């Protein structure tokens, strides 16, 4: 198990006051909160910061943690010394918030696991809780519909009352035409009821994986289409990829770079299908032989072209 340097994770000195720790935590929580942060690893960092604060905000836990000494380094392999926590009383209690199931093994080895919340005793026929998860699918799955195995990490309560994470795989048919942000509701796949009532439901929020060719906006798709200068200048008909296969597309004469052209109904299928927008991008061939350089010089003489006319130079 890895040692966690909670002071380092919060960016404070080991002798920081409780007030300083609280301020550092609040600042980092805002920075890494997954609902507002644009940092790539926001969720992971937010968990770490929460765990660090959970350990340091409580003077008793902090004192116990401090007793491990200063010589440990963040990430170092760690085994708790025997009887290290003698004299401290916090095991199983003292959880004041946060997602306790998300805390690390390191945290649990020091402070114990969170006990499951009671309160279900006596409740009869209360439906289980609904669960929510996000699933990443390929854009193509929305075109053709597809059966996908989706693995979820589910926190559960074991017979001893501890919260443990179990993985659970569900086979889900992705319906044709589903869009980003829509949800698939699986009845009865949420948490089981503890009082003999029906299980809760599971809601999967759909998100598309980034695609190498297409960008998605609602049910419309965007594709960059590279053109040779002569194709753009003279016009041509060429093949364009769509998720449904290649289609022919006419490029008119004198097409500029950045022109947006629409292939109607070639976006994500729906009652009214989305469109595929093609954005042209003129690519200039390299002048890497004497013959090609000669051709460019000739163009220069014949074209008499000043692309900077609008700049007045």
């Amino acid at each position, binding site marked *: 198990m890895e040692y966690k340097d909670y002071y380092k994770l919060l960016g404070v000195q080991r002798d920081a006051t409780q007030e300083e720790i609280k301020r550092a935590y609040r600042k980092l929580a805002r920075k890494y909160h997954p609902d507002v942060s644009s940092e790539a690893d926001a969720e992971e960092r937010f968990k770490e910061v929460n765990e660090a604060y959970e350990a340091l905000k409580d003077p008793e836990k902090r004192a116990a943690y401090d007793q491990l000494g200063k010589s440990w380094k963040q990430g170092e392999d760690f085994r708790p010394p025997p009887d290290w926590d003698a004299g401290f009383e916090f095991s199983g209690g003292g959880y004041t918030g946060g997602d306790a199931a998300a805390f690390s093994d390191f945290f649990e080895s020091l402070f114990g696991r969170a006990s499951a919340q009671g309160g279900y005793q006596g409740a009869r026929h209360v439906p289980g809780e609904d669960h929510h998860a996000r699933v990443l699918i390929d854009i193509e799955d929305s075109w053709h519909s597809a059966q996908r195995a989706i693995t979820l990490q589910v926190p559960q309560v074991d017979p001893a009352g501890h919260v443990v994470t179990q993985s659970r795989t569900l086979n889900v048919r992705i319906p044709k035409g589903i869009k980003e942000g829509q949800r698939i*509701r699986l009845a*009865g796949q949420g948490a089981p009821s503890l009082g003999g009532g029906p299980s809760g439901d599971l809601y999967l929020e759909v998100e598309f994986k980034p695609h190498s060719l297409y*960008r998605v906006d609602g049910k419309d798709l965007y594709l960059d289409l590279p053109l040779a200068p002569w194709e753009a200048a003279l016009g041509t008909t060429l093949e364009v990829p769509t998720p449904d296969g290649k289609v022919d597309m006419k490029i008119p004469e004198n097409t500029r770079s950045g022109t947006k052209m629409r292939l109607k109904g070639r976006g994500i299928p729906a009652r009214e299908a989305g469109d595929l927008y093609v954005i042209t991008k003129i690519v200039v061939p390299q002048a890497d032989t004497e013959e090609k350089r000669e051709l460019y010089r000739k163009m220069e003489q014949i074209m008499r072209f000043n692309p900077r006319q609008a700049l007045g130079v």
Partner: protein
Amino acid sequence: MQVTIYDDDTRLSTRELCHICNIPADMLIELVEYGILEPFGPTPAEWNFSQECIGRVQASMRLQHELEINLPAIALVLEMREQIRALRKQLALSGGHH
């Protein structure tokens, strides 16, 4: 297994949305009062919501619990988040550098 798709045409009643998000109706009414949710229909009894509201309620509850901010601030945070997302999308769609 019974599967339902929640798409742009889906409408959820006040009761359904409260149940899905596990919040009391009072909280939902407050979220509407602060403009965090925009229901269709004139009175709470007749309100219904788009399925996108599920995500907005959940984000609001997380922000309230984890950043200790109040509803007016949550409304502001979510509004600015929408703006940032729209700008990012525009950037991604026009630039093509990704």
